[in-house]
């Protein structure tokens, strides 16, 4: 029996569509990567050709002159802190919504989910005045608290849905075994909810890493700014040197790519998982 079937028109069409889709995702990265390693004359000669040599000087310039590593560190502190705080609060809140329903929990849950649809910018100006009074402008804390708050609704929505699929029996077994509230969270909810928690951590990290408006308003000094805000200055400062801009952007994407690679297994598991056996 011939196990290989000849491709029919539908599968060829589907393959072509996915190929175009994949290329549209990959091409900007490819374009950024090749141009980040070109000299300025090389870039203007042909933006689509491969670089003549593996030249990393644009990257070293971004670090030595633009001091992008400081902004990278700011972004890292803000993003990692936001991920950790969101995860901690989100897991606890979602466990309560999923497994320990209380009078009015449905209404509270809906209110939290509703707040997801409120644009960030609406609260930004009042928050600016608030943080200004508290002396928190140009501190990571102000941005972290804003980003955590903004990330909580989607976190709660995702984790609550996932935690609901954890069998009640397992939670009750832990109660009988002697676990208290945090014992259940630590020993049952966290390990059994890992795929969803990892997916959410990735989303929150990418969101906070790429967040522009909040840090732009709350972080006004260059040395306190996140890499995304700082990179926006590149447009003016290096407007005639796109390879520098590309190098800066390439550096800024590295953590997100690492994050994806690190959580890739959980991402697939978390997105596809619907039931726990």
């Amino acid at each position, binding site marked *: 029996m011939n196990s290989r079937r000849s491709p029919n028109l539908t599968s060829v069409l589907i393959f072509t569509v996915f190929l175009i889709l994949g290329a549209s995702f990959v091409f900007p990265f490819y374009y950024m990567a090749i141009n980040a390693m070109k000299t300025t004359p090389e870039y203007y000669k042909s933006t689509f050709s491969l670089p003549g040599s593996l030249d990393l000087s644009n990257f070293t310039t971004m670090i030595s002159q633009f001091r992008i590593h400081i902004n990278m560190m700011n972004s890292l502190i803000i993003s990692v802190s936001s991920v950790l705080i969101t995860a901690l609060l989100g897991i606890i809140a979602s466990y309560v919504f999923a497994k320990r329903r209380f009078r009015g929990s449905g209404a509270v849950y809906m209110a939290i989910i509703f707040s997801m649809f409120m644009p960030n910018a609406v609260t930004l100006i009042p928050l600016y005045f608030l943080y200004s009074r508290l002396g928190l402008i140009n501190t990571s804390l102000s941005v972290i608290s804003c980003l955590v708050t903004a990330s909580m609704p989607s976190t709660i929505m995702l984790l609550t849905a996932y935690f609901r699929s954890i069998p009640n*029996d*397992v939670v*009750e*077994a832990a109660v*009988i*075994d*002697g676990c*208290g509230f945090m014992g259940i969270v630590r020993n049952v909810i966290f*390990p059994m909810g890992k795929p969803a928690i990892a997916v959410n951590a990735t989303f929150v990290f990418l969101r906070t890493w790429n967040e522009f408006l909040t840090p732009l308003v709350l972080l006004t000094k260059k040395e306190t700014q996140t890499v995304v805000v700082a990179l926006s200055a590149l447009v003016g400062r290096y407007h005639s040197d796109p390879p520098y801009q590309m190098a800066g952007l390439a550096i800024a994407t590295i953590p997100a790519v690492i994050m994806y690679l690190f959580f890739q297994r959980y991402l697939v598991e978390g997105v596809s998982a619907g039931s726990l056996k």
Partner: protein
Amino acid sequence: MATVELKGISKVYDGGVKAVNDANIIIQDREFVVLVGPSGCGKTTTLRMIAGLEDITEGELTIDGKLVNDVPPKDRDIAMVFQNYALYPHMTVYDNMAFGLKIRKFPKAEIDNRVREAAKILDIGMLLERKPKALSGGQRQRVAVGRAIVRQPKVFLFDEPLSNLDAKLRVQMRAEISALHNRLQATMIYVTHDQVEAMTMGDKIVVMKDGFIQQIGDPLGLYNFPINRFVAGFIGSPPMNFMDVQIAEEGGTLFAVEKNFRVAVTGRNIPLVKPYIGKNIIFGIRPEDLTFSDREAPGKSMKITVEVVEPLGAEIHLYMNTGAHQLVARVPTDHVYKVGDVASFIPNMDKAIFFDAETEKALLP
């Protein structure tokens, strides 16, 4: 080990649904008590209240004489085996069994001893490093039982632990749990909807329906002296046959009269049905108390049409029709029965049970 006592326990859920009504049960030390009843009868709710997983709306629950209504589950010194095993999927079998002891900060050596001892009892020693997903249903159930054993609790609670197993494995595990009870000499409370499990495992059976306890007793006591029609029909397989009859007196003899037959009332039932002369009453007879007769016996036999023949090897189940009632008989294999046969059957009237037509309560001496 411990005595468990439920005094007037009731459970009302939000919305006013009363799941358990005024339950009074005394479970003696080392007793194996089975709560049995159809779905929604309140048996699991009762067990969960004993476990502390449900709040008690009304009444008192004591374990070893100590009121535990407001004591959290972890402090009640109970262990529970769940219907779906409820093993921690991310832990190995060893860790699943050890978890309760670790939480209670037992020394490592003690935990190891207890886990290995329980694994030996349950014959799961070779599975200790496996995760639950790598186990069969029967093995998972053993691990769930092992998790309870290692705790050495005062009371073991089982919530329909065998209902997810296939028929053969269920019979095997039934025997193993009974053997375990004999070995551990522990107080065990077991919930099931399967009356065969209840009859074969329980020292004492609590039959429940619609949140009310119908009857508490030992298996044979319930079988032979059911307090009402529900218990009579629920305990026993195939179930007891029920027929609407009228009591008539002819020549000093009392007869149970149906449209198509009349049989004389005998023995202990005579004084019990006497007040019902001329009235309707329910006549109950167990399938094994119907005997085939090759000739008609006036006033003793019933003419019945055989509709379904179920040969089971050791015995035959006959599903029959009197013309007004469906009956089932459990008969030996010494006669060949055919569908459509009209045969005479003699009910053992000494073992018949009559029920009041209105209250459905059994007329017992």
